């Protein structure tokens, strides 16, 4: 493509999204076939993305926080059947009938706060799969990394979840932790993750099948990027 046909002069304004419709159409159709202009556009978009870092910041009205949280609580979220409860309340509600209640709460605290001195939770390893409530699954450590802790929080509809781990060692850059979802002896990857210097890590799990349909999970150490099937020993695991 000849240089004069490029749209370089319009790209800064295109990145700012201020071109009129016909100019924007011209740029769009050119970009479809020009990798050079696409690269240039990416650079300008990064500039636009960083511009908020330069603005003078002022505090919003103090009462706005409460107003927003109150309104959020009153909105029905598609992903959750009971949005009016916060996650702590949800966990508390679910765990109240079970014993020992504070053992399980301690697990949440261990995982999220990095505490290491609350162990009663280990007695609780079975969770109900009530689809109207947030499901949590504690993960147990193994001899490989004693003291590691973890928890799966599964969405109300059973489709997705978040893994939170603590107390896992930082791996060599060539390695990552990999989550395995287990059903009928088959292991499917639930994603790979690394941990920070404090041993804390998290992973948003988006599996092809609903998370709640699996029977268990395991975490192994694998080459960076993950393996098609587990090659390392299990460092954390749990039953759904």
């Amino acid at each position, binding site marked *: 493509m000849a240089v004069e046909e490029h749209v370089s*002069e319009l790209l*800064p*304004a295109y*990145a*700012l*999204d*201020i071109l*009129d419709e016909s100019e924007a159409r011209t740029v769009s159709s050119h970009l479809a076939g020009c990798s050079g202009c696409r690269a240039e556009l*990416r*650079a*300008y978009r*990064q*500039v*636009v*993305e*960083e*511009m*908020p*870092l*330069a*603005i*003078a*910041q*002022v*505090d*919003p*009205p103090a009462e*706005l*926080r409460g107003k*927003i*949280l109150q*309104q*959020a*609580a009153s*909105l029905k*979220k598609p*992903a*959750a059947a009971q*949005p009016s*409860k*916060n*996650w*702590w309340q*949800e966990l508390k509600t679910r765990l109240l009938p079970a014993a020992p209640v504070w053992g399980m*709460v301690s697990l*949440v*605290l261990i995982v*999220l*706060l*990095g505490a290491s001195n609350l162990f009663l939770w280990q007695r609780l390893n079975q969770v109900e799969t009530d689809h109207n409530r*947030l499901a949590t699954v504690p993960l147990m450590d193994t001899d490989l990394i004693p003291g590691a802790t973890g928890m799966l*929080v599964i*969405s*109300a509809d059973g489709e*997705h979840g*978040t893994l*939170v781990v603590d107390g896992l060692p930082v791996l060599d850059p060539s390695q990552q932790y990999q989550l395995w979802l287990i059903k009928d002896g088959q292991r499917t990857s639930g994603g790979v993750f690394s941990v*920070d210097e404090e041993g*804390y890590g*998290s992973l948003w799990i988006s599996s092809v099948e609903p998370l709640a349909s699996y029977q268990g999970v395991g975490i192994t150490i694998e080459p960076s990027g993950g393996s098609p099937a587990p090659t390392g020993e299990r460092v954390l695991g749990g039953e759904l």
Partner: protein
Amino acid sequence: MSLDTALGQLVDDRKLNDETLLRLIAQAQQSALGELYDRYSRLVYSMALNSVDDPALAEEITQDVFLRIWNKATTYQVEQGKVMTWIASITRYRSIDMLRRLKVRPEGNRAVWAEEDDELFESIDPIDIEEEVQLNQRSDTIRKAIAELPKDQRQALTLAFFNGYTHAEIAQILNEPLGTVKTRIRLAMQKLRHTLRY
């Protein structure tokens, strides 16, 4: 330890990174929304105020942005960029939409860009100190770069960024020829790109 104490400690420790907060928000965990608000409400409110130049409207936009995050947290993808970038983008477009809907035309006379001696950008993702240091450096760099732009370029860029005005609208507001406005915005963006080394 009581649950309330534990929650307070969690918030104080700021142990969760932005991505984790969004995942928890996607699962309707309201405490996570509160924490995200604490981190980004100044950014959102300030962007909105700079755009619409009306505290009540800026408040409405801030409310709308966080409720959108509450409802749409699942649409965030890490590949799209940082959470801050995602939130700032939602805010910018929501503010511009509001301006267009209400047909109001603030002329960008507010002191919208931070001065060099203003405090640096607030910590964003407290779990990653290295990233926070880098972010503060970027904040410092772009502030200086914008401060060093010629006044006429900065004025045109401000109207484009905060108000989403087209070249023609900016030319009308500034009473300048269309070609002049196009050149000013292009030169301003080129300088920022050069300074930020993109």
